[in-house]
């Protein structure tokens, strides 16, 4: 029974990890940027959600519709004014610039909102469902379902619409895509905005699960790095499977060896994957990265 419980909890949180990682892997796939700001944007989204809830008593599931466009806009602005200029240089430059941005955002949050942990106590969402011995936390269940829906919408967008196809084309072969009339800067801005908006969805959902604080992003960034590398950098399907897998690994190891050591398990897993199969479980070899 305990295994089933761990499996279900793991898959539920894994769905949220998958959602966060989808944005990260999309951004990497299209722009070849390892986005260190990703976790911090999750933190920002959670703060937005928290403030909407506290100041205007907007339920965080309704606030989602405010947080997501706000985050998408932030993403587009960040791309336009900063990231775009780093992309031209090198991997190193883009990594360092996003690290710099991450430091700025984290500390701006610290100055603006202090280091206090802030959480939403959403009445109807904090209950948990009980089936026999199985307990399922409703906010995580809702988060999982919404994550599924959003992932579905994302895939439909990427496969059915012209813009979505252009994004996929740019991530497969940027040069050829440009030759086919895809406007690279527009596609890059859009992909970055979508990537950050996905984090916005995750942030709004998670704000009723975890308390938010300025450095919350770091731990989620690490998790999503693990997920994305496990699934293969740039692979969307890989990110989903990787997210679910890491969710299960995390809950299981937290149960058996304690929550302070759970990070150790997936970090070691991460290092092993990097050594044994850096292209990830589902990834293709990316010419710029894998020689």
């Amino acid at each position: 029974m305990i295994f089933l419980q761990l499996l279900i909890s793991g898959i539920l949180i894994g769905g949220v990890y998958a959602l966060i990682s989808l944005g990260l892997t999309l951004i990497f796939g299209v722009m070849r940027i390892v986005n260190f700001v990703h976790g911090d944007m999750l933190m920002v989204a959670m703060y937005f959600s928290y403030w909407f809830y506290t100041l205007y008593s907007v339920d965080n599931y309704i606030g989602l519709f405010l947080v997501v466009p706000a985050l998408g806009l932030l993403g587009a602005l960040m791309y336009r004014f900063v990231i775009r200029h780093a992309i031209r240089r090198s991997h190193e430059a883009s990594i360092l610039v996003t690290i710099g941005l991450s430091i700025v955002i984290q500390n701006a949050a610290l100055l603006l909102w202090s280091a206090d942990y802030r959480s939403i106590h959403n009445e109807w969402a904090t209950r948990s469902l009980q089936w026999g011995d199985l307990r399922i936390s409703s906010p995580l269940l809702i988060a999982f379902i919404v994550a599924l829906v959003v992932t579905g919408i994302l895939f439909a967008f990427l496969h059915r619409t012209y813009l979505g196809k252009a994004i996929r084309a740019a991530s497969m072969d940027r040069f050829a895509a440009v030759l086919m009339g895809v406007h690279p800067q527009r596609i890059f801005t859009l992909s970055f905005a979508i990537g950050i908006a996905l984090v916005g969805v995750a942030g709004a959902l998670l704000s009723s699960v975890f308390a938010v604080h300025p450095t919350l992003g770091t731990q989620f960034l690490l998790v999503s790095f693990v997920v994305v590398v496990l699934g293969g950098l740039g692979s969307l399907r890989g990110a989903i499977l990787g997210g679910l897998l890491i969710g299960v690994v995390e809950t299981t190891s937290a149960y058996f060896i304690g929550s302070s050591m759970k990070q150790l398990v997936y970090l070691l897993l991460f290092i092993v994957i990097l050594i044994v199969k850096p292209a990830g479980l589902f990834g293709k070899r990316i010419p710029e990265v894998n020689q």
Partner: protein
Amino acid sequence: MMNVTTEGNKRRSAILTPTVGVGSAALFLIALPFLLQNQLYYLDTVILALLWGAAAGAWNLAGGYGGLLSLGHAAFFGIGAYTSTLLFVRLGISPWLGMLVGAVLAAILGWLIGIITLRMKGPFFGLATIAIAEVLMIVAVNWTEVTQGSQGITVPYKPGFANMAFDSKIPYYFIALVICLIPFLLARWLKQSKFGYELMAIRDNEAAAQALGIHTVRVKVGILVISSAITAVAGTFYAQYVTVIEPYHEFSFNVSIQMVLMTMIGGLGMALGPVFGSFVVTGLDTLMRDLLQGTQGGVHAMMYGTLLVLVVLFVPEGMIPWLKERFRSGKGGRSHGSVVDSGASDQTFRGPDGGG
């Protein structure tokens, strides 16, 4: 200044012109702590700047000359700090010996990392190093019987040379100076040794270097080992000077990034780059502390982050080449566009030896 063109000239001018420069620099460096004797606050800043200059200099050997963008050098720094401190506190072994042991342990870890990450390209190496530093941090936090976990360890203050603890700041200054000189001189040596040429060839074009018969594996692992050992030495000195170590600082991503940031500010792949960057950052830090007078920790870090973004975007070659360029192009040329111009032209100067 010194325009070295041919091999023959190099010898002669290397003896003549720089002797005066080196001599006066040495004199200044020896006199400095005595000049600042009554301004301990500033002497403290100088010591910290030398310390971080040493760590950043060590990073620069691998990151700047070898193109190995490590984002987890805090691993080695922490090993240095923890090894000497634990040996001293638990077994009473002199920190000098602990420094050596820490350097050896870090070198072994560096060798291991080199072996296992060699196949990785692009961002994977950086991500792997982050993970390794994180793993060590978790171990240091959870292995409470030995490390006292997140509580940290205080180095007991027993002044004496054998304990690397002193009443005055001046001995600390000289130790920091020597530690800072190690990566500096090594960087200078890289510029004129076979090993250095091979290393920079690998950085600039690995496939071509391999085709020329360079044993790329051996060279890359070699520089990583050297870099990690020196970083650990800086870590030991940090523990002895600051006297408090804690896993959330010593093994932190921030420490890793600090080394990268300082090097980027001064100039990547330049001997003086990290030291210059360290003095800029540490100096600014002191200045900010003076101005703010408070516990506004966030402001410092925001400054670091902003600086990192601005430097990478606008002066990717670092401030030393940029300043040189400005002075050379005449004091009159103060057009706004010159920032971008000099950045662009520096890139063309960047030959096989990375400029400077």
